[in-house]
């Protein structure tokens, strides 16, 4: 935010406080509201904050084409400040007070779980842009990203293949919460089904925001040197722990060719502060990677760069991450469903999801079926390159059918 914008915001606040009503009420009568629940402060701010801007950008695109059903789309941005109960509170406010037609929000599983009862009680619609642990299928949540069966297992299979280094031993390092624990449970079930013994893996959890990885990396080196075959690290730490972990393994001289890291939550944005030359070859898996070559991606990249410049946002113009694209897809798919249903009512929109499809920047035509609220996405395995991004190592043939409930869990 530059000074001018800051002053403007200050003035806006003065106005907001002066008004008797809680929220700016000076909105056109024929508008439809979308709510954003992304933290722009607190621990998640680094990566989550930019999603609000993406939703606004997508809404601008809709408005440029005449809005949805002829109505202007207004985006209400909130800041739950990485405080999970505040997500629920603000969600309630957006749905019940503001009558938002749909919510776009949450990054961590815990924030989604916190909002879940709220959207279910008030029959709202939450578009959730993250890949997550699965094992959930609420009719009030649209799961924009892939459940683990479609993304994590192909990546593991690759690492266990000859070209991936024939991984035989697994060090699971995660932040201590539901997503890493469930993912690791699924992984363990998967390895068991492949005939691995329990001694082939080790599990460790660190608290949120943990940063001192020296001892853990020492342990990993010890684990890696023990007999039994090629080790890999399945990394499910989140937030600021990701760059801290990578800094430590670089300094202790671990390269992708000794112990590859499959960083399940590692995004282009996590590499922003790192010299990635010594980490080339580590892997991740998402439904979108910045380096995808597709016309829709080129357009998205240009739009984002322009949007950042125009609004002088404090984000890098050329860093694009999967959840941004997922949030963007979400807005457009919501709009398509509204047009199809000729209404913005939640029940009608939900019924209209069946068969809605959209040209995602990932190059796939993503779609929804009436079976569940999951979006069918393509999947990529990425490999870190020396330009703080991921080269595409593997991509799915088509958009695999999402399996919310993993057979391995």
């Amino acid at each position, binding site marked *: 935010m530059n000074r001018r914008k800051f002053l403007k915001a200050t003035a806006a606040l003065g106005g907001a406080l002066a008004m008797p009503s*809680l929220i700016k009420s000076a909105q056109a009568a024929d508008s439809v509201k979308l709510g954003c629940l992304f933290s*722009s*402060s607190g621990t998640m701010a680094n990566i989550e904050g930019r999603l609000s801007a993406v939703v606004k950008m997508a809404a601008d695109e809709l408005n440029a084409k005449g809005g949805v059903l002829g109505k202007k789309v207004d985006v209400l941005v909130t800041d739950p400040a990485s405080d*999970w109960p505040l997500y629920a509170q603000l969600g309630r406010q957006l749905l*019940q007070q503001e009558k938002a037609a749909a919510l776009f929000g949450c990054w961590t*599983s815990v924030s989604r*779980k916190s909002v879940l009862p709220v959207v279910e009680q008030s029959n709202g619609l939450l578009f959730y842009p993250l890949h997550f642990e699965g094992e959930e299928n609420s009719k009030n949540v649209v799961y924009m990203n892939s459940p683990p069966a479609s993304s994590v297992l192909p990546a593991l299979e690759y690492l266990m293949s000859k070209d991936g280094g024939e991984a035989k031993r697994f060090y699971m390092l995660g932040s*201590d919460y539901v997503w890493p624990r469930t993912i690791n449970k699924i992984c363990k079930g998967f390895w068991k089904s492949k005939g691995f013994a329990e001694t082939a893996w080790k599990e460790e*959890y660190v608290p949120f925001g943990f940063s001192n990885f020296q001892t853990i990396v020492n342990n990993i080196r010890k684990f890696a040197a023990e007999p039994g075959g090629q080790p890999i690290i399945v990394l499910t730490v989140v937030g600021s722990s990701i760059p801290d972990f990578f800094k430590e393994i670089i300094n202790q001289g671990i390269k992708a060719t000794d112990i590859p890291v499959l960083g399940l939550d590692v995004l282009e944005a996590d590499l922003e502060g790192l010299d990635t030359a010594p980490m080339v070859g580590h892997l991740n898996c998402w439904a979108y990677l910045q380096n995808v070559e597709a016309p829709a991606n080129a357009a998205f990249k240009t739009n984002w760069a322009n949007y950042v410049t125009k609004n002088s946002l404090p984000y890098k113009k050329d860093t694009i991450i999967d959840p941004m694209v997922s949030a963007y897809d979400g807005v457009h798919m919501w709009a398509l469903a509204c047009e199809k249903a000729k209404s913005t009512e939640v029940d009608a929109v939900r019924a209209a999801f069946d068969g809605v499809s959209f040209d995602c920047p990932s190059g796939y035509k993503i779609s929804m079926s009436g079976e569940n609220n999951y979006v069918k996405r393509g999947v990529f395995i990425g490999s870190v390159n020396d330009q703080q991004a991921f080269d595409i190592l593997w991509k799915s043939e088509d958009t695999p059918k999402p399996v919310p409930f993993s057979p391995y869990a």
Partner: protein
Amino acid sequence: MTAILESISREIQGKGGPARRGLAAERLAGMLVVAALAILVAGTQGLMSPYVVNLIGQVATFGMLAIALDLIWGYAGILSLGHGLYFAIGGYLIAMHLVKVAYLQTGTPPDFMLFMGWDSLPFYYAGLENFPYALALIVLISGGVAFLFGLISFRSRVSGVYFSIITQALVFVAMLLFFRNDTGFGGNNGMTGFTTLLGWPIAAPETIAALSAASVLAAAASLYVCARIVRSRLGHMLVAIREDESRLRFLGFETLWIKIAAWVISAVIAAIAGMLYVPQVGIINPRVLSPELSIEIAVWVAIGGRGTLVGAFAGAILISTLKVVLTASAPELWPFILSLLVIFVVVLLPNGLLDAPAALRGWLEWRRQRAAS
């Protein structure tokens, strides 16, 4: 500047001590009882949206929390930076009760059991589906923890900022423990997915209204109780401890038990606030144990005015309402407003916003005097 401040504080101390404040608190408590009835009627008859009713209930629990802190900080001069611990004890126990009830009713195990691969709830959930037992546990555990901690710390005469830092460390330790999934409290996700409270569906407008009214009533009750305490002999002793504990001991008073008594009462009020808060917000997780939340409680008290009960309550209501409104309508500016407000109040209004009129009068008086001389 210092001169202004001194004249301000003279002004404030001149008029009405704890006794007068106690009376104000009792009047406010009476008003709150009426308000609680109004909420109950308005909520059940659909005159007020459930959202607003629910919000009032939540804010009332914060008010209780502030009253609890004010009792020990404002009157006994003991600043706890860890009152979130007692709030969380109440919150977690009621959440365990609700989770157990939901599990027994629906047969769906809570999430954390699923991803931890557990077949049954840990042993300490035993019997918690029984509400009176849960309520008794809340009082016993919060009071017991407070008693133990108070006994140890006050006996070794840890005081002042040291005590504050230790309470902060303790709440931090508790947060680390509760963040762990293997401790059986749902880890970082905490607990959610509540269905019924005492047989009432938790999302029904009637339940929301009842909970909200109960919170306002509980706030009224704690205001009343604390007001009676500060006007009693115990209250005077507390103020004496704040002013000069050594002298009091030298005069032959045993301050230990007085401090512990106030400390335990404060903790139990905080725990009951937590108990009322959690069913209304629908989730509890270790964030309530973060040191920041505990500092925020102290901020409410300081902004409203400590040592006045009414001020603490008002501070909590003001700041938490502002937070809800501004994190939605001006999320970029909320942290700036909060921090500047705190700095402003702390530096210029040592006794909080409640004394702003008095401070203003004092300042005008001081100017008049200066002009005259």
